[in-house]
């Protein structure tokens, strides 16, 4: 047997008698390979399932806990689906603080930042991509430094600055430091650079005003990148905890993430059901958006890693 297997591998025919044998062995080997592949396939999919569990189970546990009574959260082995859904937890979480105000603040700040970033990044990116002007190298250097050095590093002087401008605890104070984005300029500049010169020439021959060319021809051409950047910016600032925490001293301009983190102080450490209910209020919209536009969002976040 073993000999014939070797023969098949080396592919040297050894007479007619061996030929039948070889065909038999080959089919047997194929069967073996098939079973092996099937087993690997099963292991592969079991592994993938395990992987999904590692990432989905914590979220499932959050949902499950948010619908339990406090004693139920301490039962082991755990009950994944609670007997009665305690919707009251969500109301309790909502009532630990001025949640309507948190919510409005979150929307105002994230949208305000997004609008200002669009207004400042599009022209700047266009100028860096399309015009030659003195000092552009130096000015783009400022953009690159801002891109590379994280903002978390300079919160102390920014705090003092905002405090001097009397902007602490205001929406403006939380929006202005992010009114432009180095990352946005970087992304959009790449996109503007890729547009062919011929298209512009044609428009210029028509004597179209420069601002018209920019607004009516160039900006629509980079729309996918704009969407990508908008998603990235909105999610980042919707989720942000650090800046609102550092730049506020009272509730007037505080956002949802701060409100959720504060439930723990209000309700005490061990009321996990109410905490998870609050947590779900924060997570659910983002996860919903993610499931609706997974492709776009993944692209938005992975984009900068490839370029």
């Amino acid at each position, binding site marked *: 047997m073993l000999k014939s297997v070797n023969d098949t591998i080396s592919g040297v025919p050894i007479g007619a008698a061996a030929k039948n044998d070889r065909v038999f062995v080959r089919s047997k080997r194929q069967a073996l390979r098939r079973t092996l592949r099937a087993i690997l396939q099963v292991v592969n999919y079991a592994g*993938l399932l395990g*992987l999904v569990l*590692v*990432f989905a*189970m*914590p*979220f499932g*546990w959050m949902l499950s*806990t948010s619908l339990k009574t406090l004693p139920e959260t*301490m039962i*082991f*082995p*755990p009950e994944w689906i609670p007997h009665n859904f305690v919707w009251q937890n969500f109301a309790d979480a909502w009532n630990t603080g001025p949640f309507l105000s948190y919510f409005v603040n979150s929307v105002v700040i994230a949208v305000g930042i997004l609008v200002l970033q669009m*207004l*400042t990044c599009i*022209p*700047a990116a266009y*100028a860096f991509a399309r*015009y030659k*002007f003195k000092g*552009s190298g130096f*000015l783009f250097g*400022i*953009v690159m*430094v801002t891109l*590379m*050095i994280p903002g*978390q*590093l*300079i919160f*102390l*002087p*920014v705090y*003092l*600055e905002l405090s001097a401008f009397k902007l602490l605890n205001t929406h403006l104070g939380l929006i202005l*430091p992010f009114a432009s984005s*180095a990352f946005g300029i970087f992304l959009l500049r790449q996109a503007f650079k890729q547009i062919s010169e011929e298209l512009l020439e044609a428009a210029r021959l028509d004597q179209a005003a420069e601002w018209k060319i920019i607004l009516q021809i160039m900006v629509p051409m980079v729309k996918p990148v704009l969407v990508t950047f908008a998603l990235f910016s909105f*999610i980042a600032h*919707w*989720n942000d*905890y*650090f800046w609102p925490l*550092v730049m506020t001293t009272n509730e007037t301009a505080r956002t949802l*993430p*701060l409100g*959720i983190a504060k439930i*723990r102080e209000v309700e005490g450490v061990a009321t*996990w059901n109410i905490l*998870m209910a609050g*947590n779900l209020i*924060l*997570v659910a919209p*983002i*996860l919903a958006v*993610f499931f609706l536009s*997974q492709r776009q969002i993944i692209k938005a*976040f*992975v984009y900068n*890693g*490839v370029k």
Partner: protein
Amino acid sequence: MTLWAKLRPYGMVAPAILVFSLFFIYPIFYMIYLSMFDWNFVSPTKAFVGLQNFQDLLSEEDFRKVLTNTSIYTILTVTLTTGLALLLALWLNKRNIFHGFVQGAIFSPHIISLVSISLLWSWLMDPEYGLLNWVIGLVGFGKLQWLSHPSTALVSLVMVAVWKGVGYNALVFIAGLQSIPADIYEAASLDRSKPWTTFTKLILPMLSPTIFFLVIINMIGSFQVFETIAIMTQGGPINSTNTLVYYIYENGFRFFKIGYASAAGVILLIIVGILTIVYFKLLSNRVHYR
């Protein structure tokens, strides 16, 4: 060219440059300036102390502990995240619906607020009623203290960071793998090279720009870890999870030692600056390009 056409580019970059200068470039210099003063935030005068703050910092036991913690946290998080992500990418790099779904699942924590992640994992890691202790109990392990014990707290935080970041990293790797031209793979399989050789001699060099990119952004991110620490451990137990940004935050906002905190900020700035320079040097010198 008209005067207006000459001025136009400056007008177009001005708003962005103004924002960066006001809220980024100026604060860096202001922080360096503040680091040489003794100031408590309320007093009208600042006392110039030169480099005293730096000397005090570097000789302080707590600060050295903070630097050690930050380094251990960074090294563990970066190696585990990048390494696991590479393995996951090689495994998940297929284009079908099921793999797409798995990719989405492992990516999802990346877009969730760190507040939610921190609260969720505080609950999962609860020493009494946490799900994690129950799960490891099923496999026969005893209960762990997770965040409540100095010997496990920092590693627990690393676990959370890896869980949050590994999916994003894996997807960046997958994008990198898919940008390797198919004919290179074909050439390798025609040469009958072993999978391991293909990996070390071909895939790894082709991926090196991606690897450098991820290592550096993971490092910069880990060096400034704050949210998980502020919510999950507040630097404790017994200072075992106190890291640089949290230390700066506490000194500035709780003890009002502005000069002292600024000095710590300058040290962090130097570390991050060096990392960034190293990144660009490596990128331009050693990294393999097509």
